[in-house]
């Protein structure tokens, strides 16, 4: 009985925490019904094979769906669904006369072994207890915050489930005491585990910082030279860009703008991002002015952390279609979002009047340790006094002629700052070096300039009819303030795109196909009108359920024989009121009860051999004879015989208690 309560409680707990409270009571009722009905379906092991296959297939489909819609977290999501997905298997077991499922039905690898009589493949297992544990695991997976009820409920379920299988070597008191100790230890341990993870994380972060240096901060409002170099090692598609019909795509797509440089690091931390006002009557945000732009494009991609910086074309006026809890932007035009799904899609209107914040003193700042070097180069190149565009053109020629692009800087020197090494010695590097050098040289020549990191839009895909922004397309360039306001200047030699394309792995096509398929599914899921779709699904489910119910109803059933599930007729029926049953239960608790398949005579004979103290075997024989007649004789017992049975049992119990302490 306690295991039945445990099962019900575990299912309800799962329903409560996993958000299936509408379903869990229904499942509990179905399981409970299996104890009430007097028949069983005549399922064969082959039918269990098929049911397992369907269950596995449904679970795999759920995994694919969950991963495609929720990324890696989808795996945990499927775990929360498993009690629902695996329920048909448990229900079939409960309503089948077989009483268990063969291991060969559960594991495909064992299925073929049944033919060879593999005992493991033929072993029949009861799924009830594993299912109960699954319910608790699924409930725990669904709860993100510490819930004060989860631990006590789990403990209660575990206690109810394990009570019937406790060791008969010990009194019940020892079991209760042990459980209490385990509960206290368990509670302390779970806190310890949590604390240990925090400590470990802190230690690992500390250790990693010491090992590789502090390259970035989570808000991404600082960046160190080398950050993009790391990204460039990946061929993965980060974003997909689709311009609205006929519109020209921007060549560069900024993601973050910086203006302070020092010790190999750009930062914009002094400019706190501020909340962006939402557009009235639309699901969008106004980034500048009235939110109107002359052109628009749509971007879609993954934000696995559900927060981060969004790439925007220069002059972005508004974004729409973005699901986010908060959208904030700093004065340099860097847009940070939080509380988004793991996949985002948004439309950006851009172009027209207005743009970045006007230049200030910070846009002319030079790092003191490089100032002399920069001024010397500016003088050598004759940049001073030139217009911003002329200075940029001369710089571009200089970089193109004397520098070369390389992703890996093998001959790096550690005795001088990396930028000085780049400008004076190695003259080789990737876009971050060119952009940083460009910004600082322009500033030294009196032109306000900023450092921009983002993506170069260089790859068009016919397959998806869109522009692909891969991680290796991450790029850095210069934003300089010229005659017409802020303009882009890219000093990285043009060959960088081709050079990096060569690093693409041979399996890139397969990976692209998967990513594009994933994006297409995500977009389809976002576009689907949920209500309409759900209604269709529910209709389909209802039809399938009706077909299944009809087939099950028409199946041959097998009536449960009296006491089929247990020896000695413990189940309901004639004579269940016999007082002898109470005595039997007490004897069973002391391992003195009849064993499976043992007749009453054999049992009494065994007891004679054991000679248990306080048990009058002659009276037992008389009581057993009367009990049998009460249970199995169609005429039953006469009232005086019933009284005699009760008297005999009473006498036996009194002697048993006084003789054995039981």
């Amino acid at each position, binding site marked *: 009985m306690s295991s039945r309560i445990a099962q019900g409680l575990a299912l309800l707990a799962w329903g409560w925490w996993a958000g299936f409270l509408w379903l869990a009571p229904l499942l509990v009722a179905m399981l409970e019904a299996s104890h009430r009905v007097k028949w069983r379906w005549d399922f064969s092991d082959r039918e269990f094979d098929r049911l397992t296959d369907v269950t596995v297939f449904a679970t795999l489909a759920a995994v694919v769906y969950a991963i495609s819609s929720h990324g890696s*977290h989808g795996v*945990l999501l499927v*775990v929360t669904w498993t009690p629902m997905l695996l329920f048909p298997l448990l229900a079939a077991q409960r309503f089948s006369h077989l009483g268990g499922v063969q291991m060969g039905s559960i594991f495909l*690898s064992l299925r*073929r*072994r049944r*033919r*060879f009589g593999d*005992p493991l493949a033929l072993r029949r297992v009861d799924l009830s*207890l*594993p299912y109960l*544990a699954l319910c*608790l*695991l699924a409930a*725990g*997976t*669904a*709860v*993100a*915050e*510490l*819930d004060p009820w*989860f*631990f006590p409920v*789990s*403990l209660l379920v*575990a206690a109810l489930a*394990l009570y019937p*299988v*406790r*060791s*008969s*070597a*010990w009194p019940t008191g*020892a*079991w209760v*005491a*042990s*459980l209490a*100790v*385990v*509960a206290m*230890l*368990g*509670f302390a*341990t*779970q806190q*310890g*585990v*949590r604390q240990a*993870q925090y400590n470990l994380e802190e230690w690992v972060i500390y250790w990693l910082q010491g090992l590789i240096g502090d390259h970035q901060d989570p808000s991404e409002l600082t960046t160190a030279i080398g950050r993009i170099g790391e990204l460039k090692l990946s061929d993965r598609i980060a974003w997909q860009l689709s311009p609205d019909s006929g519109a020209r795509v921007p060549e560069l797509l900024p993601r973050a703008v910086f203006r302070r440089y020092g010790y190999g690091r750009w930062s914009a931390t002094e400019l706190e991002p501020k909340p962006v006002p939402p557009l009235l009557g639309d699901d969008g945000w106004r980034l500048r002015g009235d939110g109107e732009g002359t052109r628009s494009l749509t971007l879609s991609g993954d934000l696995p952390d559900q927060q981060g910086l969004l790439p925007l074309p220069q002059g972005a006026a508004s974004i729409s279609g973005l699901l986010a809890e908060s959208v904030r932007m700093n004065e340099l035009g860097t847009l940070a979002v939080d509380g988004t799904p793991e996949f985002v899609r948004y439309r950006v209107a851009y172009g027209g009047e207005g743009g970045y914040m006007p230049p200030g003193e910070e846009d002319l700042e030079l790092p003191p340790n490089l100032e002399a070097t920069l001024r010397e180069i500016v003088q050598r190149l004759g940049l001073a006094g030139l217009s911003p565009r002329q200075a940029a053109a001369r710089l571009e020629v200089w970089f193109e002629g004397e520098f070369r692009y390389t992703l890996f800087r093998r001959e790096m020197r550690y005795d001088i700052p990396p930028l000085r090494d780049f400008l004076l010695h190695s003259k080789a590097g990737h876009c971050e070096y060119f952009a940083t050098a460009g910004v600082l040289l322009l500033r030294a020549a009196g032109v306000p300039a900023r450092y921009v990191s983002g993506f170069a839009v260089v790859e068009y895909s016919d397959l998806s009819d869109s522009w692909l922004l891969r991680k290796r397309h991450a790029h850095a360039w210069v934003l300089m303030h010229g005659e017409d306001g802020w303009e882009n200047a890219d000093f990285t030699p043009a060959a960088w795109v081709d050079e990096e394309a060569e690093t693409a792995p041979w399996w890139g096509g397969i990976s692209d196909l998967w990513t594009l398929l994933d994006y297409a599914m995500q977009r389809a899921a976002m576009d689907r009108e949920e209500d309409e779709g759900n209604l269709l699904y529910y209709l389909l489910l209802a039809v399938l359920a009706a077909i299944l119910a009809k087939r099950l109803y028409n199946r041959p059933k097998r009536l449960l024989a009296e006491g089929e599930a247990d020896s000695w007729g413990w189940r309901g029926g004639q004579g269940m009121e016999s007082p002898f049953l109470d005595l039997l239960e007490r004897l069973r608790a*002391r*391992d*003195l009860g009849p064993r499976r398949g043992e007749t009453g005579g054999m049992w009494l004979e065994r007891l004679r*051999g*054991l*000679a*248990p*103290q306080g048990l009058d075997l002659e009276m037992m024989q008389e009581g057993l004879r009367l009990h049998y007649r009460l249970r199995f004789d169609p005429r039953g017992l006469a009232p005086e015989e019933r009284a005699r049975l009760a008297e005999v049992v009473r006498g036996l119990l009194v002697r048993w208690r006084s003789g054995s302490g039981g």
Partner: protein
Amino acid sequence: MPPLFKRLLLRNFKILYLTSMWTRRRFTPTGRFLLGVLVFAGALGIDTRINIVHQLFALTLCSVLFAMLWAPFFRGGLRARRLLPRYATVGQAMAYGVEVENPGRRSRRGIHLIDELAIAYPDVDAFFHAHEPGEGRRNWFDRKVGYPRWAWMMLQRAGALEPEGEVGWLPGGATERVVLSLTPVRRGWIDFRRLHLLRADPLGVFRGRTLVNERDRLLVLPRRYPIAAIDLPGGQRYQRGGVSLASQIGESEELVGLRDYRPGDPLRKLHWKALAKLGHPIVKEYRDEYFVRHGLVLDTFCDSGGDDFEAAISVAASFVMRLDTRDALLDLLFVGDRVHQVTAGRHTAGRELLLETLACVAPSPKGDLHLLTEALEARARQLSGCICILLAWDEPRRRMLDKLEARGTPLLALLIAQAAPPDLDGRVRVLHPRYLERDLGRLR
């Protein structure tokens, strides 16, 4: 695979197997279930920030560790001994008893009993040359890595799954007989190593253990099937050695005379009265005998013991059971390191000897069929009829049958094969190794 890697693999298999056996013996089914939950909860709850499965992990871990703390407190103090039958049969459940005695005054309850079987671990060659039946149907990983084959070999070498049972309540000074059941998976000897007497902790998770070193052996006979009444042609033949070999079998026991004892004469031929009178041993001489003597020839020439070989053994064992050894002799002939002949009949040995022999026959991959043919030719004159159980059909086997026929020995030739070879003689009948019961029942 390089030899070093093979050895390493086998070593790991052994460690894995020993660990799994330890877990199976020491943890109760509840305990093993909790171990499974522990693994899953550990995997799912590894990040305590995203869910609270680590609470289940902690609860399960503490249950298991706390349960293990109780194990050293079980001292046992019980005695046990097995009550084994003489034989068991492959594939048939056999019940045997274990008497557990509680010599102390305190009563015991909840004692679990496991009977450990001895295993000789395979070496690298044996493992990599073995083929588990149906191994081709396993998945790629299992076939290449081979742990299922290892597990199968362990079961084959042990001979059966370890029997276990519950002792129940055992008062002080009492002895309880526990009935254990064992189903042998192969023929030959099963070695019992020791008895594990175990008691679980209060939560019913982990068992404390006491060991009783009690070694025993049990011979498992081959599987046998009913055979329809067969009528082997051929009458009684003259038997050199006469009644000294056959005693009561045959026509009569006619005394020819007395002679002096010669070394090697059986004691039962001593004439005791003459010995008493003369003071030196005198033996009785009988007339040589005529009686029925059948030959049962077992083909053992195959590379390794597979289904066909086991089927051939079973067929031979079935004939041993069918043929009457009260009024006839039965010679079992096969080749191992040399030609073996074992004879059963009244006053020589019972059919048990033949079954025991068959229980231990091994394949003879390097054996020479020519030896068997020669041995048969030499005995052909004595044999009233001969049953040949063949594992293959080729020229040497055809010649063997031809030679026996040429000497006038009536033959019943049976070939164990899934299908009849195209060049098979009409005198040979085919028995399918999987449907022996059906095919043997059809023999006439």
